[in-house]
């Protein structure tokens, strides 16, 4: 697990809630997952087909917004935001619509796992709220991709494992 050293250079913004713990580690876990998901959605978009391009674009946009917001939060809590990897290995070959949608499900399940971990990794209420929203949004998107594939059941009892 990556634990970058906190940056001693103060940008002038005080830590939002100095009493909480674990904020940076929680956020970095979510951020690392968002980097991977955004990389993966490029591949999803290339194979999902025209009919689903709007859904791919919406989800990709949502993850990019969350990534940017999370980078900002890591900085506010004194961390050095983790960077994206140049490349990520795939869990299976992505060659057509079905495999592209299965990848989208896989990506959202990965995001859900990371943010669910983040909920428990900090006691900071605001960071927990961010993680909880990200977890719920990932669960909803995974369900929509399962409906689009389609595959059943479309929901799971515990998103993120």
């Amino acid at each position, binding site marked *: 697990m*990556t634990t970058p050293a906190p940056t001693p250079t103060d940008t002038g913004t005080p830590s939002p809630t100095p009493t909480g713990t674990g904020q940076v580690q929680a956020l970095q*876990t979510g951020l690392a997952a968002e*980097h991977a998901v955004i990389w993966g959605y490029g591949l999803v978009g290339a194979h999902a087909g025209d009919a689903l391009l709007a859904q791919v674009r919406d989800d990709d946009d949502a993850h990019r917004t969350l990534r940017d917001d999370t980078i900002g939060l890591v900085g506010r809590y004194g961390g050095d935001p983790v960077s994206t990897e140049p490349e990520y290995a795939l869990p299976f070959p992505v060659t057509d619509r079905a495999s592209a949608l299965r990848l989208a499900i896989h990506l959202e399940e990965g995001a859900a796992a990371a943010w669910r971990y983040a909920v428990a990794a900090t006691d900071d209420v605001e960071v927990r709220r961010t993680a909880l929203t990200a977890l719920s949004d990932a669960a909803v998107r*995974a369900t929509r991709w399962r409906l689009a594939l389609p595959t059943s*059941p*479309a929901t799971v009892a515990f998103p*993120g494992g």
Partner: protein
Amino acid sequence: MVAVARRSVLIGGSLGVGLLVAGCTSGGPSSPAPTSPAAPDPLLAELADERSLIAAYDATMARYPAVRARLRSVRDDHAAHAAALVTALGAAASSSPGEATSSAGSSAGSSAGSSAGGATPSAAPSGSPVPATVAAAVAVLRAAERSAASARGTVALTAPPDRARLLAGISASEASHVAVLP
């Protein structure tokens, strides 16, 4: 076989460590249950709500067989939620009347789902009657899911780590249910 995504592996590693940390710092899945007549365990309210949801699904499926297949898996999710809450409550769960199932996970959920059908859940309070149209009945379930997701999420914000993780997962599951209700 292509290797699993490197980042996924890293995430998995983090999760494992996180679970260990949670287990070490807060004593595992069963949090200390107050034996003194103090305030009731806050998870009891969440468990009661899950059982109400299960009863509402059972009643709707009994009344409208056309949507039964669609609602079945959602109902099974709630059975898994209830079973996990019973496990987390430990001894405190027995202070409320309830199902005998104490094992967590989807197996408990699916077994409960396959056996119950329209049977009467022992603990669920008899809720309001099922609406007169299937659309209205599903709308009631949809609203109940939104409310449940919000309630579980709110409790998760200040709960100990292991409970926060459980409640966050339940809350996210319930948010996703809204997307499958026809």
